[in-house]
């Protein structure tokens, strides 16, 4: 017996639209069962997960949580928007985490190497260098793919570790804060090198979130309203058709990697110049990998990615609220997050495909009978 996924000839528009809600409903049911088994009130759990972080919308006392939501979502959205261009054009950039770190390092050069250089131009320069650093780092797997036909999944992934270790070496060695008691990490950035907060009185959300929104709208416009966007999709779905249309697949590889590298780099420098305020060895906590989930959760549509990024960020915040209020372990919290992703992706899959059970053609009736007798079916 074997399970096959058969592509549906046409997808139900209705179900496509309600699929996220079906997934949410299933998550709520499964989550309620899990929390009940743990002896916690499931309604409380769901409240802390999904409502508590959002109470800031009407309650000024909790408004800081909305800021935290924006801080957590900003790098996820920025990176995922760039990845959507890659994935739509059939370029599998798995190394956004490395490009994030490369951007953070490149942008940090100015405040770390020239700490006396105080001017309003410092921050724009840092952001540009962050984007350039991320893009340059992403051009390596792009070049290798175009020139040597290497597998970009492997090269981009392996370059993540290179970037992380290089950053580790920098902040423990040449860039280490001389007044930091030999602990790893650069000096704290001066005020001209810090990303301003959007609304300083209410919380610490910084301009990185605005960059994420601008990037999402810009890439959405590019993908849906311009010839370039058409080129991205044609080359992604059918490279042969793209060639007939006169599109260059090699140029597309560079285009996709440079855009996603630049946005990952911008996310990196925004994180460092925003909430962290200095470069250290712990900035890389997996945003580049989580963003892959966000990209698919948003169905590779930049506007959908904004929503997906916010939802994923919400589960992080809600998870903490649940840990404190219900005293569940962080493993429970992550299991719940996993359920949400599982149901969303499963619902989407079942809209595009249907399941068919196929009797294994290799199994002869006698063998089948034997396995049945053994109780293995």
């Amino acid at each position, binding site marked *: 017996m074997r399970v096959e996924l058969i592509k549906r000839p046409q997808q139900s528009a209705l179900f496509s639209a309600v699929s996220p809600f079906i997934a949410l409903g299933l998550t709520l049911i499964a989550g309620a069962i899990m929390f009940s088994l743990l002896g916690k009130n499931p309604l409380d759990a769901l409240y802390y997960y999904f409502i508590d972080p959002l109470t800031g919308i009407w*309650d000024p*006392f909790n408004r800081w949580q909305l800021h*935290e939501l924006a801080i957590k979502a900003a790098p996820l959205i920025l990176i995922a928007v760039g990845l959507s261009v890659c994935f739509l054009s059939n370029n599998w950039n798995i190394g956004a985490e490395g490009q994030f770190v490369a951007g953070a390092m490149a942008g940090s050069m100015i405040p770390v190497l020239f700490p006396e250089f105080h001017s309003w131009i410092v921050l724009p320069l840092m952001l540009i260098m962050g984007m350039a650093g991320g893009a340059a780092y992403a051009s390596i797997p792009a070049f290798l793919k175009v020139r040597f036909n290497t597998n970009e999944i492997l090269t981009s992934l392996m370059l993540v570790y290179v970037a992380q270790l290089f950053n580790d070496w920098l902040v423990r060695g040449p860039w280490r804060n001389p007044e930091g008691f030999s602990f790893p990490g650069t000096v704290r950035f001066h005020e001209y090198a810090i990303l301003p907060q959007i609304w300083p009185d209410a919380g610490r959300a910084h301009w990185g979130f605005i960059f994420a929104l601008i990037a999402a709208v810009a890439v959405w416009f590019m993908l849906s309203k311009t010839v370039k966007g058409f080129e991205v999709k044609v080359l992604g779905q059918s490279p042969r058709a793209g060639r007939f249309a006169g599109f260059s697949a090699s140029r597309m590889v560079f285009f996709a990697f440079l855009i996603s590298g630049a946005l990952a780099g911008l996310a990196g420098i925004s*994180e460092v110049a925003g909430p962290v*305020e*200095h470069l250290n060895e712990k900035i890389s906590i997996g945003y580049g990998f989580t963003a892959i989930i966000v990209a698919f959760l948003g169905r590779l549509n930049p506007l959908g990615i904004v929503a997906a990024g916010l939802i994923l960020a919400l589960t992080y915040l809600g998870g903490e609220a649940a840990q*404190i209020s219900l005293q569940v372990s962080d493993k429970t919290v992550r299991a719940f997050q996993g359920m949400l992703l599982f149901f969303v992706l499963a619902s989407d899959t079942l809209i595009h495909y249907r399941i068919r059970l196929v009797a294994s053609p290799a199994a002869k009736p006698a063998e089948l009978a034997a396995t049945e007798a053994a109780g293995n079916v």
Partner: protein
Amino acid sequence: MKKSLLSIAAAAAVLSLGTFAAEAKVKACFVYVGPIGDFGWTYQHHQGALEMQEALGGESEVELAYLESVPEGADAERAIERFARSGCNIIFTTSFGYMDATNAVAGKFPDIKFEHATGYKREHPNVSTYNSRFHEGRYVQGVIAASISEAGVAGYIASFPIPEVVMGINAFVLGAQSVNPDFKVKVVWANTWFDPGKEADAAKALIDQGVDVITQHTDSTAPMQVAAERGIKAFGQASDMIKFGPETQLTSIIDDWGHYYTERVKAVIDGTWEQVDVWEGMAEEHVVMAEYTNMPDDVKAKAADIEAKIKSGEFDPFTGPVNKQDGSAWLAEGEVAEAGVLLGMNFYVEGVDDQLPQ
């Protein structure tokens, strides 16, 4: 209109709940860098927290809240601020990487007390820092290792080249050399605080290179288990790991945070809390040696003797003459290292078979 009325009612409900909780008891909150089940660093902090709760009268007196596995980046400040807003009276942040975040939140909540483990920044009067003199235990371990090792080489699984860890390696080497001046230590940098797989690999690599005692500055029990399989001896880390190596563990440096947590939370209850910078060791029982096992009686006696001397203040592990790794003089005869130098230590003493990653 209806909406705003509702929100006022909700806010009032929250406020009244908050004050009620604060009147009934004190709330102590802990931010942990790892899982409470690591049987190492975080486990011991959590044990200390539970001990504190017990000592101060149980759940009815002290409300305990904690967050596990909080990353040390932008997330830390959110976690700490969440605690600050959820009615905590005192917040313990138990890893070095929370330093800036702890100070940032402390600036916003002057009425809440903050206690940061292993850091050096106290930017506001409501921030204290605390740490333990773990290297005192490392010295005792060195004495034991050199006494029982036949190979004359010990393996050291290190986490990250920060002063704390370098200090531990140096104290271990000095302890060992006090018994056998030619004793060598091989160091493997695992670049992790908690990764059982990597730690086990490091232990295997060291044993393959011929060491017959291993010690670790990482938090899992994996090296102890590998040592048990290969039939060599090992030291536990942070907690008593005897059940993971009943035939293997020589002793373990136990981080006992319970006294400190009890003292500090009690000070909050009594209204006597003041900013401190604490660095205490065996004398205050912040560092406790687990029972000496799996070694001859004369080694036990030697270990107990040096432990007693350190505890009474008669002896300091970093007492000259000590040379740096390159042979240059560091401490003259009878000279004791200054705390400032130790807390920023970034060099090896003579006898370490490794190059310090810089």
